[in-house]
């Protein structure tokens, strides 16, 4: 593979794939570099029911179609890799990946999205898949007639807590605040459900067990009191964090570590654009990611064309 492209996109979620489709269709040579599975959070979505023009589609199918569209226009996609170094200043940007290959381009679009927040307590990684889950639809049926905890207080936590009562005999919602951030109808539904009870102002500080999860340590935040609770499973829904750790000190981020862009999706560095869930914005949806990706692609195509024209004039 020739390692120079007009544009490099970092991230192959809805935003990155859309940018790839627009750029490649405009005959801008484009490479997408993606950590993990192509599709990003789309792959985590069982059913997308609010993507205009498609009544019901699994996130996976939607991602696969976007990927095929991008490839059909000539976009190159490399996935399941790690970007190890970024040099974004100047006219030629460079990106190095874990096998030491380096790619260069006139413009870079950052579309790294976000990921589930983890609790970060000891035992969390060890008991993943052995009692700890991040997906109710995937793993709910392993907890038939079992007692489980749902951690979180947003829409996802309360909605999934209600859906898990189909399987579990008892669901305890553990939340760090004394109120929920979820929409009222989600919390009302959870409060009405007889299988659900609540432990507020509390967090999990440790997961314990032998070959599988058996109990957790709870800390009552105001008092600092610790207690142990026997439990068969824990489902964690505590929100998302932007995937921007590797950009700190390289590009302007706000205090929430989201990338700052203007309405053209331009960052503080010339020739570097950003799109999707990793940027500062209020609504994180497939439609908004796709819209950002479109704008970033069209503005960066203009930028690349201008650079090419200028270099022709100089020649």
């Amino acid at each position, binding site marked *: 593979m020739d390692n120079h492209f007009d544009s490099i996109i970092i991230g192959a979620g809805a935003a990155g794939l859309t940018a790839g489709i627009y750029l490649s269709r405009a005959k801008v040579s484009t490479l997408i570099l993606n950590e*993990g*599975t*192509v*599709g990003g959070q789309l*792959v*985590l*979505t*069982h059913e997308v029911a609010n993507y205009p023009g498609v009544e019901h589609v*699994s*996130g*996976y199918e939607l991602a696969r179609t976007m990927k095929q569209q991008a490839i059909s226009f000539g976009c190159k996609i490399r*996935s*399941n890799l790690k970007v190890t170094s970024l040099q974004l200043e100047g006219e030629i940007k460079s990106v190095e990946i874990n096998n030491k290959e380096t790619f260069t381009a006139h413009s870079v679009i950052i579309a790294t999205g976000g990921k589930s927040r983890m609790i970060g307590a000891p035992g969390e990684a060890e008991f*993943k*898949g*052995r*009692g*700890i*889950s*991040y*997906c109710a*639809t*995937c*793993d709910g049926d*392993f*907890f038939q007639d079992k007692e489980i905890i749902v951690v979180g207080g947003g829409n996802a936590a309360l909605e999934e807590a209600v859906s898990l009562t189909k399987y579990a005999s008892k669901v305890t919602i553990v939340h760090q605040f004394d109120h929920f951030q979820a929409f009222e109808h989600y919390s009302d539904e959870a409060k009405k459900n007889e299988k659900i009870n609540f432990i507020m102002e509390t967090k999990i500080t440790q997961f314990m067990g032998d*070959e*599988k999860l058996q109990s957790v340590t709870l800390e009552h935040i105001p008092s600092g009191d610790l207690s142990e609770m026997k439990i068969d*499973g824990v489902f964690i829904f505590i929100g998302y964090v932007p995937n921007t750790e590797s950009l700190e000190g390289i590009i302007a981020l706000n205090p929430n570590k989201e990338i700052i862009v203007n309405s053209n999706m331009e960052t503080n560095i010339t020739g570097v654009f950003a799109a999707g869930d990793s940027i500062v914005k209020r609504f994180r949806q497939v439609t908004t990611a796709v819209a950002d990706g479109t704008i970033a692609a069209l503005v960066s195509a203009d930028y690349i064309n201008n650079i090419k024209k200028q270099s022709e004039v100089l020649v």
Partner: protein
Amino acid sequence: MSLKTNLTHIESLEDHKSVIENNENVMVCCGRMGPMCIPVYDVMEELENEYTNIKFADMPFDSPDARVIRDLAECRNFSGLPFTVYYKNGKVVKATSSIQTRDQVTSILDEQFGK
């Protein structure tokens, strides 16, 4: 009933027997087309070209014959899809539960089967 992947599909007890008997090194991912499973199939599809000494296959978790994986002693404590099982000469050498990254999968492949 087969999964929508480009991997070898195991759909019955006979398929399973034949795959693990006719290949020295086998990785089988037993799952659904769900968020925790798709990334593992994706990694396996990519690794097929790199690890030519390994047979990569999938099996639908909900097929009755998938009990050959669901009921393995090694999967006794699993409660997260997919169940991924690694076989050497027909014997289970490793099993994991829930989503795995490419690095996690390759470290098992290298350790169990060599590159």
